């Protein structure tokens, strides 16, 4: 389960098949060979469903992207891209994106070890079915040298309204950069990050063990959590203002007639922050995270089952959010 600050943990491993050109130089036959090989390997792990990017609608592809199961690049740039998605949507394997194989596991909260354990099963199954490109010196060979070695990126999605509102986020990004970590806005950059959502991940992939990466990311996260808690304390200096902002956001979420994606991100963030201070009782914080995804444009479109104009989508979003927030969150006074 996620807490108020740490939303989810994601680990990805970049792998390539030995003897075949990397995706941007690969032909259709080679691409199919890899996709089929990965599908066979995963059938021994658990049930995975395959989606070929050439075979699904743009809307369905965007929904997968909004759920963070595929990257925007797989959807728009890959020529023969596919993805295999596990039944509970925590594990997915992208094929023929930047590398032949990109394994990924996403778990709620801070779950670096658990996510790594799960991805190991997928990785071992793939390695025992396909010969992976590996050199003793550079480790797993990848199409870009920034991923060499472990091919591992461990990232944690964090909710950082305190640091953002107190304008401390840029300093935090610089600090964390010194620890060889990268901070990116999940939707937008820096203080413009929608919903105050950020992704913190390791920069180095070579010359460090998987254990060291997990530990260093974990250490950076603790550091950021401390800083965020302090910043949330600073926000209390003007409690009336803060409380008013949060209640107004609650009012919008439950009463607005139309809401844009950005507004929905904002009100959901303020409700989450309200839960932290005890101004709003939230039954289930994970459901709030889930709403953040379900309010994204393609997910809204899918919910309606028909083509909507932006305005119609905003009206539907307000109705959808109002019903959900009323059952999920109540003002504590």
């Amino acid at each position, binding site marked *: 389960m996620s807490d108020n600050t740490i939303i989810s943990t994601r680990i990805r491993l970049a792998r390539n098949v030995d003897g075949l050109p990397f995706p941007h*130089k690969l032909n259709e036959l080679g691409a199919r060979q890899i996709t089929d090989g990965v599908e066979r390997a995963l059938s021994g792990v658990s049930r995975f469903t395959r989606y070929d990017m050439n075979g699904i609608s743009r809307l369905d592809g965007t929904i997968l992207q909004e759920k963070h199961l595929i990257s925007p690049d797989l959807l728009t740039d890959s020529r023969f891209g596919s993805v295999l998605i596990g039944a509970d949507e925590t594990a997915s394997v992208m094929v023929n994106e930047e590398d032949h194989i990109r394994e990924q596991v996403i778990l709620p909260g801070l779950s670096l070890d658990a996510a790594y354990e799960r991805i190991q099963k997928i990785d071992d199954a793939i390695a025992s079915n396909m010969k992976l490109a*590996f050199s*003793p010196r550079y480790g797993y060979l990848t199409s870009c040298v920034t991923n060499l070695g472990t091919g591992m990126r461990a990232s944690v999605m964090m909710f950082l309204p305190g640091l953002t509102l107190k304008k401390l986020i840029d300093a935090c990004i610089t600090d964390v950069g010194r620890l060889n970590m990268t901070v990116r806005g999940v939707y937008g950059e820096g203080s413009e990050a929608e919903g105050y959502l950020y992704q913190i991940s390791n920069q180095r992939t*070579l*010359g*460090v063990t998987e254990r060291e990466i997990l530990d260093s990311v974990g250490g950076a996260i603790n550091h950021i959590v401390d800083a965020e808690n302090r910043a949330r304390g600073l926000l209390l200096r003007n409690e009336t203002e803060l409380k008013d902002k949060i209640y107004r956001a609650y009012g919008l979420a439950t009463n607005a007639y139309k809401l844009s994606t950005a507004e929905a991100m904002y009100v959901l963030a303020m409700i989450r922050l309200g839960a932290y201070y005890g101004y709003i009782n939230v039954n289930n914080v994970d459901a709030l995270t889930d709403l953040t995804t379900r309010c994204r444009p393609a997910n809204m479109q899918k919910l309606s089952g028909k083509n909507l104009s932006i305005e119609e989508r905003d009206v539907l979003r307000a109705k959808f959010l109002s019903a959900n927030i009323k059952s999920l969150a109540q003002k504590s006074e």
Partner: protein
Amino acid sequence: MTAEVNIKMVCTKCGLRPATTEIWQRYNDRTEKMFLCDECAKDYKPNVGFDDFCVLDKLMENSPISLLSGLSSFFGDEKETKKLICPNCRTTADEFLNTGFVGCTRCYEVFEPLIARTVKKIQQSDRHVGKKPQGADVGGSDAARLKEELQEAVDSRDYARISAISDKLRKLEGNGEV
């Protein structure tokens, strides 16, 4: 500082032959750019001074990919290396230096000198210490790695390290692993 030129233009020095190399020369607070042909570039004597390193510092602050394109300028004297093309996937050295991407596993052998340096700059290491794939042919890699490390230690005359690595190698040999 020199870098390969991708667009077609005439050499700014002789005005005759097509320019193949871009030269940046920094003088105090300004940077001058020249586009030279192969012949004139050969005769060009760079005025390397402190300011050139200021430019390097700026490049280092950039993203890994910009860093790579920046580094391409430091291989200007290695014309032979820059002409390399991977026989397997036809990726050129320029393609690698400009994008950071290689086309296949063979590229790692073909562009080894370029890759070794860029990798070390970006990753602060050029040696994998993590997981190895199950069933991969990595036998003897420990010994191979130690031998490479030994060579580095010999080159840098690090006698303590030479002795430590030699001990490890002897142990491996004792176990019949070499």
